[in-house]
């Protein structure tokens, strides 16, 4: 096997340089342009940090709600705090504190309910029953006071630890302020519990206390978890005022994500709401809310409702192969779990053409696409079908097909281009073949020195026209080759090139001339350039000189 010489690749250096320059140009960093700096960082590289002051401030907000008897709001606030998502050094305290404050909220809610129940019993003369309720209430007050004490102990320990761990003066000061705020709120809650405790001594005290306390409103709510835009949503529930006499002019407002959908009177209610047709699908919060008025406190209850659109299923029948120009007929049905999509707009389109139809009452549709015989309508086409339902409770849906389209003009043009390319390639190949055929044939040597010519037709040099310059040149060379073979006894073997053969024959008289003739023949055959008449004449002149030299007739 011959080794590949590195010098053979030398002519390719401009191309290699072009490649490297292109690669380098594409990889250089972007220039500093007018783009504003982006504000972001790799979260995996960010260091964890904890701010205990922020946690204390958050609990202060929760306790503030509790001390104002907004137990539900306080619970919502605290439940939003996921201890698992906090920095590890805060998780333990957060779990404990959240549990304690939520339990405190439960106690306050129970205390409030029992106080009102006891007052009602006392007012209706059932003193014994009122006493029993008050005894129960006392236990809740004691439990509430104890829980508050534990919570504040935790807060104190946490704040002390926080002061020790947070190095910055600013962070320490923030924690101190938050702690002081929490202590103020805890003192207020403790005073309130003490007032309740005092009211448990006698039923009349409970009645007196309820006279100065605001009246809470209890609300319950029930609705299906899933609803559809434009379709009815049944809602049931009850709103009850824990008061000696009912309020006036208060209604229950039913809201979906802040948008009022109905208003019903207090008491047990059952209503059906038609959801707005333009309601976007998603998770909504259905809230039943009674506003505060005078001593009557506000009340609310909520539930999640998922507004969804039914997803239609499109079944399409279509031919696998389409001839263009021609027609592509699509037919099928479209229906969802709520029934067929009557009157839905079915639109089908490709890059080149679009058509539309309306679905019938049973959801059936037929779309006729007139496929033009354009160049681009050749091969698999991306055909998309979109269904836009008439009813808001059905979702728009899109599906796609890839029918094979045979465009006759496209095929014709592509075929012409292909034939032209093939003809051009064949012409180049034919030229090359002619040149190859023009080469002298190798001569094999039989064992024992018996020389014989290998394929006779290859020694006859050229099927080319001897009237052309190339023909004349090769004919002269063929004659010279025979003369040298005869004079030297050497043969042109299959593995020997013309140049090698000329080198071996260089020692004989006329060897130099034959080398020049060989160079001339190689140039004519391999250079790929037209052979001129003077080259043929030069070859004939050299051939005549070689003949003289071989015969010993030196100049």
């Amino acid at each position: 096997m011959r080794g590949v010489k590195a010098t053979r690749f030398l002519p390719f250096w401009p191309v290699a340089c072009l490649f490297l320059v292109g690669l380098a140009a594409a990889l250089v960093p972007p220039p500093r342009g007018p783009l504003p700096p982006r504000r972001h960082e790799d979260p995996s590289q960010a260091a964890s940090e904890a701010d205990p002051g922020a946690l204390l401030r958050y609990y202060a907000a929760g306790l503030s709600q509790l001390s104002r008897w907004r137990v539900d709001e306080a619970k919502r606030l605290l439940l939003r705090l996921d201890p698992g998502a906090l920095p590890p050094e805060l998780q333990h305290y957060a779990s404990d504190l959240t549990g304690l404050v939520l339990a405190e909220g439960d106690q306050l809610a129970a205390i409030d309910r029992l106080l009102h129940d006891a007052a009602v019993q006392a007012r209706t003369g059932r003193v014994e029953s009122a006493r029993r309720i008050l005894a129960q209430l006392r236990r809740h007050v004691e439990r509430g006071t104890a829980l508050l004490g534990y919570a504040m102990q935790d807060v104190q320990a946490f704040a002390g630890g926080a002061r020790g761990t947070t190095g910055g003066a600013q962070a320490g000061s923030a924690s101190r302020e938050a702690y002081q705020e929490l202590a103020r709120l805890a003192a207020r809650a403790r005073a309130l519990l003490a007032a309740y405790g005092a009211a448990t001594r006698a039923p009349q005290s409970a009645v007196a206390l309820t006279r100065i306390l605001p009246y809470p409103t209890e609300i319950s709510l029930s609705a299906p978890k899933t609803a559809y835009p434009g379709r009815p949503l049944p809602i049931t529930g009850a709103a009850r005022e824990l008061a000696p006499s009912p309020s006036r002019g208060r209604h229950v407002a039913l809201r979906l994500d802040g948008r009022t959908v109905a208003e019903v009177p207090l008491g047990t209610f059952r209503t059906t709401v038609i959801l707005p047709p333009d309601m976007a699908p998603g998770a909504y919060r259905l809230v039943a809310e009674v506003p505060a008025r005078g001593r009557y406190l506000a009340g609310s209850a909520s539930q999640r409702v998922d507004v969804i659109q039914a997803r239609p299923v499109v079944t399409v029948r279509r031919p696998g192969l389409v001839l263009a120009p021609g027609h592509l007929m699509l037919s099928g049905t479209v229906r969802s779990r709520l029934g067929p999509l009557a009157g839905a707009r079915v639109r089908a389109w490709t890059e080149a053409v679009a058509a539309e139809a309306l679905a019938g009452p049973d959801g059936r549709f037929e779309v006729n696409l007139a496929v033009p015989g354009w160049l681009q309508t050749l091969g698999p086409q991306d055909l998309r079908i979109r269904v836009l339902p008439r009813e808001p409770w059905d979702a728009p849906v899109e599906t796609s097909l890839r029918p094979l389209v045979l465009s006759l003009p496209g095929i014709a043009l592509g075929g012409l281009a292909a034939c032209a390319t093939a003809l051009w390639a064949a012409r180049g190949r034919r030229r090359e073949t002619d040149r190859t055929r023009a080469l002298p044939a190798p001569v094999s040597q039989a064992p024992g020195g018996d020389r014989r010519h290998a394929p006779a037709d290859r020694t006859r040099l050229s099927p080319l026209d001897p009237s052309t310059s190339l023909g004349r040149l090769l004919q002269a060379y063929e004659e010279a080759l025979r003369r040298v073979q005869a004079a030297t006894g050497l043969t042109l073997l299959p593995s020997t090139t013309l140049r090698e053969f000329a080198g071996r024959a260089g020692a004989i008289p006329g060897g130099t001339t034959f080398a020049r003739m060989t160079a001339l023949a190689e140039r004519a055959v391999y250079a790929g350039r037209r052979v001129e008449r003077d080259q043929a004449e030069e070859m004939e002149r050299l051939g005549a000189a070689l003949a003289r030299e071989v015969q010993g007739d030196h100049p």
Partner: protein
Amino acid sequence: MTTRNLLFATGVAALLLAAALGTYPSSTELAPSNPAWNGLSQAVRAFHLHALSSLGELPRTAAGTALVIIPARPVSGRDIGVLRRYLDDGGLVLVLADSGPGNDLLARLGIPVRLAAGTVEDPLFAYKSRRFPRIAEVMGPASEGVRALILNHPTALLVTGPLEILAQSSLVSYLDTDGNHRQDPGEPSGPFAVAASASVGSGTLVVVADSSLLTNAMLPLGDNRRFLRNLLALPGSGARVYLDTAHLPHAPLDVAKDLLDQARKTIAFPPLTFALVASGVLVSWGRLGISRRR
């Protein structure tokens, strides 16, 4: 070196260059082919984003499609017109922005919301650090299955008109306007809106005050992926989602990739493909015939 050899070598070099440029990942931030933390390669795969090198490539029928735009560079008046038509026609535009060009885009589209100058930080509801606030209040159409979003140096939305708030920060968050990562006196406290939507024509524009939400580092955090999936499904199931790359930061490599993509689209023109394949077959057949005759 003959002309034929030169042509062949140039062709090989061009193919090598194209292959190298096509496969070499971009390191430009927010580049669709960038697999690093600040790239969008995961989002491109997860949401089947179709990259648009110009807004002019948006489909003629906008309904049932969505467009994600991260305006890192100013948007031209012509592109504003294209966006307005797209929205009027029923498309969904998701704008992820937290600085200058985003404000300009929103103002010129006439959306009553602006991006605040500053960063929303949360010392309590956060992922690792206050600079990655955890947004636990997510409402409205995109909130299904979403408990919390995690944002990366977001800003606040200053809503000045009728917009639906989709997500807001906690009450202990604050707007850090001087960049010292703590709440100084006078710096506003939360909650702040960080995502909102507005109806424009028949379409919807959703703006999220964080340009990094789609990046490879942020997509898997919290319920970011779910939130984005919900948003991009608003135009309908199977909606085609486009990503505007014309207004993303560009390095020369990205420009080269865009050019290659254009070239690929040109070659994919059916008659040209047919002609190339047919020529290849005919030429090979012809060569085979010649070699057999020999």
